[in-house]
Structure formats: C-alpha cells, structure tokens
C-alpha cells in the first residue's frame, strides 16, 4: 500500500489516477448536477477508502497518500476532469488537517481512523443567520458547566448536515473579548441531545444545506481543539486549498461546454451574434484558466497563496454566471423549462446550470467581501 507517490513521474501518476477513476467511478454519477447525498456516493467513497485514496492530502503516517502540492493538484485535476462527485469530505479536507496540526494525541487517535473508515462524516458549523459575510460576529455560545461546554445557538448553510455524524463548530466562549478573540473550536457528535437538523430547500429544489439548531448541547471539554478562545486562528489555518478551489475554472469550463453542445445541436453557430457572445465567454474561461494555472504553479512550488487569490473566485464565479445567462438566453422559448430540454439529438438541463451559477458569487465569502479584501490587502487602498 505504501507507494511513494511523490517519487512517481507526474504523467505516470496522472495516468494511474485517471485509470482508477475511469475504471471504478460509477458513470451515472459523473458531473452530478448537485451535491450527492451519502446514500448515492457511499459505495464509491468506501472504494476510495479501501484503495487508501480517501485522504490524498494527509501525511502517510496518518493514513493519507501524503501527496506533495503538485501531485495533489494532479489528483484534483483528474477528479474534476472525470466529473467525480464530492463525497461528504469535510472530515478529510478540514478536520483531519486541523487535528494533525492542532489536535491532542487523543483526538487524533480517536477521530482520524474513523474519518478514513468513513465511520464519521463531518459537517461544518460556521455560518449563522445573523453572520453571513461577517463570520466573526457569530453568536452561538458555549458555557462551561462541569466537564462540558453547553452550547446554544443556530448554525446555518451547513452543507449536508443531514448526512453527517459529527459537526465542527465555531462558538463564542468569551463575550467580553473582541470579536475574533472570544471564539473557540469544538467537535460534536450529531447524536448529542439538543441538536436538530432542518434541511433548507433551495430554489433549484435541492437540500444541499441545513440549519443546525443547538439547544443546550453538552460537548465534553475534551472536544475543544487547541486552546480556548483560539478558534478563529485555528479556523484560519484551514484556508489554503479551499481558497483556490473556489476560483477553479472547472465549473465555467463545464458550463461553456454545455453552451457549445446546445449551440451545435440548435444550429446556433450559424448565427454570428451567438458566436460573438459565445466566443467572448470562451475567451474569459480560457484566460481564467491561464490565471488559475499561475496560482496553481505557486502551490506546486510549495508557496502559500496571498489574498490576491480572491481575484480568481470573483472572476470565476462571475464568468460562470454570465455563461449560465447565455445558456438560458440561447434556448429562447425553452429557456425556462425545468429539467432536461430535449433537443432530439440530446438533452440539456438549462435551469440547473442557471441555478448552480446564481449563488456562486455568494458562497465561500461573497464577491463583495472578496473585492473588499483585494482592495485593501492587495491594492492597499484605505479602509
């Protein structure tokens, strides 16, 4: 099992990964239109786990693949290229790296193997109804009572909390301290009494997100990660790959491919006006990919990303949004049909692309906040 992936030639590694995905990933789940539920993606996830590939980002000593940044990027590229759907990966992406860095030995010993065995599925309890873009204003409170924290509050926009067995939480443990300084990082079992999950249906009809109500939930003090009131700093160390992920051109590439398909099937490439609009966006996608590649190179060289990476998220999501608008526009009178539009030669789901694109500039830190960050931290404009 313990292959030294990093010693492998990049192209050999790429081929290996690609072949595995092509052989084993269920074809009907390629390029899913929405986040897959655990029941749908379970078999694949377990197969990944058996292969030892569940946690490509973790060190080998903790059961990961221990990939270097450049190999990890190849792994992700191949996932995206093949349209491999995400499993509930918060444990792998967030909790694992966090515990490896900030967790106690007992926490690591308890949680890491269970994540790798898919026994624990994690969800992220950060956002709250009154703290959207302004996360540091969160109000969910944790009070020490005996050996426990007693946690009360509401978390929202928690991705797939319905399927999760555990949740990691940012909670306020010091109400007197300045905004970011009174926050702690807790781990909780979703079966703990007092936790209620309420799925939130979105406009597209999916329930990707939930509200998580916390009513005097007792969390053992041993589930505190790091020091008390140090949660903000800890949470920030998790940013990294996340930040470039939001700026990936993949969604836009997939969407422009749908427009191209539609254009071919509908004969729109005979229309110079369509060709003009399409080309403008195709060039936006191509140039976005060029810019993305530059940031990826930075990661491959082992450098950390600066706040300028926010540019990618802004342009990627707004390009995606413009492509979705063009897709709707190109379908004319069928542009508001729910589900697949039958074009004789094939079927295209117009509205799902439109719906997926709509909140992209909001999630992961709204583009307004991203622009504020770039303006002040990159352009050094006054606050």
């Amino acid at each position: 099992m313990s292959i030294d992936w990093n010693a492998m030639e990049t192209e050999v590694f790429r081929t290996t990964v690609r072949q595995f995905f092509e052989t084993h990933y269920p074809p009907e789940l390629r390029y899913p239109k929405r986040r897959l539920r655990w029941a749908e993606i379970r078999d694949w996830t377990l197969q990944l786990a058996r292969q030892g590939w569940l946690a490509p980002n973790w060190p080998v000593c903790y059961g990961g693949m221990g990939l270097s940044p450049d190999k990890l990027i190849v792994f992700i590229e191949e996932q995206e290229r093949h349209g491999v759907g995400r499993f509930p990966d918060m444990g792998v992406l967030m909790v694992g790296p966090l515990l490896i860095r900030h967790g106690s030995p007992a926490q690591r010993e308890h949680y890491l193997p269970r994540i790798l065995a898919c026994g624990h599925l994690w969800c992220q309890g950060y956002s709250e109804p009154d703290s959207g873009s302004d996360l540091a204003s969160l109000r969910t409170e944790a009070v020490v009572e005996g050996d426990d924290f007693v946690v009360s509050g509401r978390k929202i926009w928690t991705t797939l909390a319905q399927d999760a067995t555990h949740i990691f939480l940012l909670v306020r443990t010091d109400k007197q301290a300045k905004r970011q300084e009174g926050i702690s990082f807790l781990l909780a079992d979703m079966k703990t009494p007092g936790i209620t999950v309420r799925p939130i249906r979105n406009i597209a009809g999916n329930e990707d997100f939930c509200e998580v109500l916390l009513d005097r939930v007792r969390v053992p003090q041993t589930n505190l990660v790091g020091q008390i009131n140090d949660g903000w700093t800890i949470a920030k160390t998790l940013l990294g790959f996340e930040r470039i992920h939001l700026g990936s051109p993949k969604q836009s590439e997939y969407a422009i491919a749908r427009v191209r398909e539609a254009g071919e099937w509908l004969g729109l490439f005979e229309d110079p006006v369509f060709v003009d609009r399409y080309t403008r966006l195709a060039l936006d996608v191509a140039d976005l990919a060029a810019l993305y590649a530059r940031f990826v190179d930075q990661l491959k060289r082992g450098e950390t990303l600066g706040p300028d990476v926010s540019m990618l998220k802004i342009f990627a999501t707004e390009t995606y949004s413009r492509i979705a608008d063009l897709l709707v526009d190109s379908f004319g009178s069928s542009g508001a049909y729910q589900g697949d539009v039958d074009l004789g030669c094939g079927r295209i789901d117009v509205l799902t692309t439109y719906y997926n694109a709509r909140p992209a500039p909001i999630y992961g830190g709204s583009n307004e906040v991203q622009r504020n960050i770039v303006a002040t931290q990159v352009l050094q404009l006054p606050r």
Partner: protein
Amino acid sequence: MLEDEARLEQLNMLRANATRFADRNSPPCRARALRGVPPGFDRQFWQSIASQGWTGLLVPEVYGGHGLGFAEMAEVVSSLSVQVAPEPVTPVLVFAGRLLEACAENAIAHSLLGEMAHGHSLPAVAWQEDTTGVSGFDANGHLATPATSCQVDSGRLRLSGCKRHVRPGAAADGYVVTAQLTERLALVWVPSASVGLTCESELLADGSFAAKLVFAQVDLPFGNVLATDEAAQSALAAAYDATLVIAGVELLALLRQMLTMSLDYLRTRTQFGKAIGSFQSLQHRAVDLLIQQELCSAVIAQAIAATDAGCDAKERALLAARVKARCSDAALCAAREAVQFHGAIGFTDEYDLGLYLQRALVLAAWLGNGSIQRWRFSALGGHLRSTGALE
C-alpha cells in the same frame, strides 16, 4: 398620453381595487402552493377574477365585456403580478382574447369571446413550433408562416403539425392554432378535446405548465377557421404585440417587487456593524436597477399610450419589441442582483424571492426573450430610424 382626467381617475380607482383584491386574495403563499400541481393555477380563483369583471375588461361591450383599454388591463395584470398570481391572465385574456376579438365576425370566435369574457372559457394561442421559438419569425422580424398545415377535405378541415410553448398548456379549453391553409396563414380553433390532438405538459421554472401540442389529422368543421390570409396576419400581429406589452407590464411588476424586497433587506440586514444598504457598492447597484425599472416603466407607458391610441402596425410592433426586450433583460438582471443582495437566504425556497425570479425566467423566455426581441427590432428596421424624436 392620458390627458383625460376622468380616465386617470378611473385608472387610479382600478389600480386601488386591483391592488386590494390581489393583496387580500393572492398572497405569494397561494402561488407557492400551486407550483407543479396541474394545471399550475386555480380555476376557482379565475372565477373570482371574472367576478371582478376583469376577464371581460378588454372585450368590447357588444361581446359581453367592458371595452376598456390596455392602460386598464395593465393595472390589473400588474397588481396580480406583484403577488406572483399564476393565473394565465395575459396568455388567455390578452393573447387569445385579442385574437378572438379581431376574428369576431366568425361565429365561433364571437361565442368564445363571450364565454371568455364571463370567465367560462380559457382559450390559448398555439403558434410556435421549434425549441427556441426563433422559427416563429421571418427574416424581417414578422411572424412567419407556420409548418402546421390545414387541409380542406369535403368541407371539413384536417389539421396536422406540432406546436410548442403554449401557455397555459393543457388547462386551456381550446387553442387558436396558426396553420397553413392553401399556402396562406389561417387561424383555426381546436377544442382541447379534439380527437387526434395530444398534449404533452412541460413544467416551467415557476411551477406552471406549457404544452406541446401534436395534431394528427385533427378533423374539424370548416367554420373553425376563424380568419385567413391578411385578416389572420394582422389579427395575429396585433394580438402578439399587445401581449408583448402586457408581458412587459408583468415583468416590470416582478422587477419592482424584487427591488422592493431587496431594498427592505438592505435597510434592515446588518453586517460588520451596519446596515448592508449603507455599503456604497450595493447602493450603486440598487440605483442601476432603479434606472432599469424606470426605463421599463417609461417605454411601457409610451407603448400603452400608442397602442390604446391605435398607432400603425409597424410603430406598434417596434414599440412592443422594445418593451419586451427592455423588460425581459431588466427583470432577469434584477433577479440576479436581488439574489446577490440577499445572499444565501435569497436562494432558499422558503424565501419568496425565488417565486419572483422563477416567474421572471418564464416571462422573459415567453414570446421571444430580450435577445430575440432586439434582433426583431432591427429586423423590422427600427434600428435605422432617426432616434431624434422628442416631439
């Protein structure tokens, strides 16, 4: 313009009535509950619209209606649209209604018009035949001759072909179908129960339905030809233009409501210690939406005044294309921005914004979206006119 003080007074009263009616009887939760459940609207509610006299609002008194103008119709439509009422007021009363009225010398059209005016019948118009709807226009932007054909056979008609994007879909009591009759345009009435007619429902973004109709040698009496040739052409063009304008009215009402909801949210939602409406970038984008709203409103007013005054067909077509182009794009832009203003909450199903966004998608696509109408405007030659016309 509405110089006439009395009419202005009457319009104001109608607006107040319609707003009160819609507010009371059609909160957005009513629309929400009807989504995706055939027929996608409430026939009983249609009856209460009829009780208000609105199903006969545009219909001349000789046919049992009130003979009012588009300005009045716009008030009713606008009030219902603000509440996202899903009833097919525009497709039935404006599109089919105007068409039937223009054909009212025909006995069937005459009687259908009366039934419609009293709320007893829901006729629809079936004219488009392809996926995008673009083949519905010829190279000059006029309504094209359809492929659906109508053969005359010993005094009977045989209708064959396929129609798409028909609103309100399967719930209509019959269809005014555009067809070729001896190489000329004919408008043919096809009751929904006709043998040989199959109707496939397509679910739309807002939970309402459109129909795909297939006519397989549908056998009809010759009297079902409501009009042919130039009479049919001009009736269809006039009804289509009027419908574009009233669809613009609906879109403007949606835009207005989305902007109102956004402004309320911007004023009350706080982040980083202040109302998000105090952030300049959001303020400026809200102003841009207001400008689009007022542009819609100005061009609609111009179009309604011209249509009510009975301007010539070319002028009317250009104005109607302008209205639909501006309002379709502005409403979609407002939908996009409203979601962004609201953040994640604006994208949830339980928040009403989605109802407006989805209705805007449907109305923007219906009858030809912004791009198509802009193309039509130029194909009709409108772009080469001097724009220097203030007088």
